[in-house]
């Protein structure tokens, strides 16, 4: 079943210029899709269109076959589509972790016991059980963002969209958040739409989509996309360092495959060295 489907969607902001042009795009249930793009490529607009925060000018958007354009679906759609935004400070409503996670669950009118259970479930899913009664402002960036994920999880959405959720975090916080997201996708079967400009993160996805000026310009497995690094550069996206190392090694006559996995590369180099020394 298609979790998200865009058919010929147009969107432009009031100040002119198309943010999204005739976009056709879909995500299968349980899939992990990364959307890559430079600033202003329209990738964040995509997230906001999915749950009706923005209204498309033309075309059709469906979430589990429910059209977003119909107002009566909006509540049901928002229950199914959770969005984690960029700045953790601007998406926490309450000062205490537990109260903030409860916010979404309270909004959908659950009973007290049910909310309590969902808070425990959500905190466990992001590995932050011991912070239940902590103050949000005292947490690190990565921890705050995990709480934001927990706040979304408490509504038990089937789809989770991460709109540049790691952009403000340090490498450690980024890894924390990405580990949680990967686990949610693999173990809980949540459909993930990851919007990012960090290429390494896209490597965890089943499929990567590259956007430029409101259009999808490349699509495929992350590896196949990274192999076309010259094309990527024309969209102002650059490979992580390890990608360049692969290319340089090949240019220098060492036959390694395209990879962003450090261990795999190390293994291949080691084998080359072994072969040459024999």
């Amino acid at each position, binding site marked *: 079943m298609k979790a998200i489907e865009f058919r010929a969607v147009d969107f432009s902001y009031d100040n002119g210029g198309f943010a999204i042009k005739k976009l056709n795009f879909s995500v299968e249930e349980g899939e992990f899709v990364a959307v890559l793009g430079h600033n202003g490529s329209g990738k964040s607009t995509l997230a906001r269109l999915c749950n009706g925060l923005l209204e498309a000018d033309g075309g059709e958007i469906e979430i589990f076959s429910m059209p977003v354009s119909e107002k009566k679906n909006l509540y049901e759609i928002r229950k199914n589509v959770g969005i984690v935004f960029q700045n953790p400070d601007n*998406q926490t*409503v309450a*000062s*205490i972790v537990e*109260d903030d996670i409860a916010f979404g669950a*309270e909004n959908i009118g659950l009973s007290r016991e049910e909310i*309590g259970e969902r808070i425990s479930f959500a905190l466990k899913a992001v590995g932050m059980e011991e912070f239940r009664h902590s103050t949000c402002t005292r947490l690190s960036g990565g921890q705050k963002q995990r709480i934001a994920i927990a*706040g979304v999880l408490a*509504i038990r959405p089937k789809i989770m969209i991460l709109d540049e959720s790691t952009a403000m975090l340090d490498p450690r916080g980024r890894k924390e958040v990405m580990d949680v997201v990967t686990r949610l996708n693999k173990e809980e079967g949540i459909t993930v739409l990851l919007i990012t400009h960090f290429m390494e993160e896209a490597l965890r996805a089943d499929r990567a989509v590259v956007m430029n000026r409101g259009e999808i310009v490349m699509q495929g497995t992350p590896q196949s996309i990274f192999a076309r690094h010259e094309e990527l550069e024309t969209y102002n996206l650059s490979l992580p360092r390890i990608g360049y190392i692969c290319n340089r090694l090949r240019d220098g006559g060492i036959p390694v495959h395209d990879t962003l996995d450090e261990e795999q590369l190390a293994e291949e180099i080691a084998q080359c060295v072994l072969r040459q020394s024999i």
Partner: protein
Amino acid sequence: MLKDVSFGQYYPVDSFVHRMDPRLKLVFLIAYIVAIFLAKNFYGLGACLLVLVLAVAFSRVPVRKVLRSMKGILFLVVFTAVINLFFYRGEEILFSWKFITISKEGIIFSIFLVLRLFLLVMCSSLLTYTTTPVALTDGLESLLTPLKWIKFPVHELALIMSIALRFIPILMDETERIMNAQKARGANFESGGLIKRAKAIIPVLIPLLLSAFRRAEELGDAMDARCYMGSKNRTKYKKLKFGWRDLIGFLLVAALITGVVLLRVYLGATI
């Protein structure tokens, strides 16, 4: 300097006072303030102080932290005390120079004023130290429920308040960051006259305001995304319940008010 304003900061420990019902804590605070103003002699204020000391002791909030909440209004307290000291018209004049006179009554009145303000700020900040903003606004929402009858948006008001409280530390940090950024560009906030200093604040206020609006917009989106639809169909995770602690608190506050009134009747008013 901005870090000193500890108002609205919850101190997370588990204590007798923390576990009291926020609705009653709010009522107690009001009753306590009434008691402070009913006290017309030092014995009455002494009784108020005793209750405050008890409350702080049972709250497990460090005394230093409670005292620190005074820093923010220290200037105000000193200023009003000095004004009253110089201009209070008393009988027994101790010192007189031009239009300034210091009388015995003036001194007593000033001391009284300082003590009152001290108690007032202490007990208010104790409330915010021991009650989470959510509990506080829940309490307020519950106390204001009767106003729903006249279509007053009680839930919305409570939510606005809790969000405001939550953003205080964030906006404080932001102010400090902007001030540092301006200082690095040569701005000077410490010297010059009042007008010059006020002018120096404008380049801080504008970015702060802009960022507050941006935050508000993002928070609005995040709330929408988390299915917020107003108070309609909404449940509450935390139910408020009265307990034995509240009864003890009630008895203590009732005793305080009676005590203060009796002390005033039998020992007379100093001011």
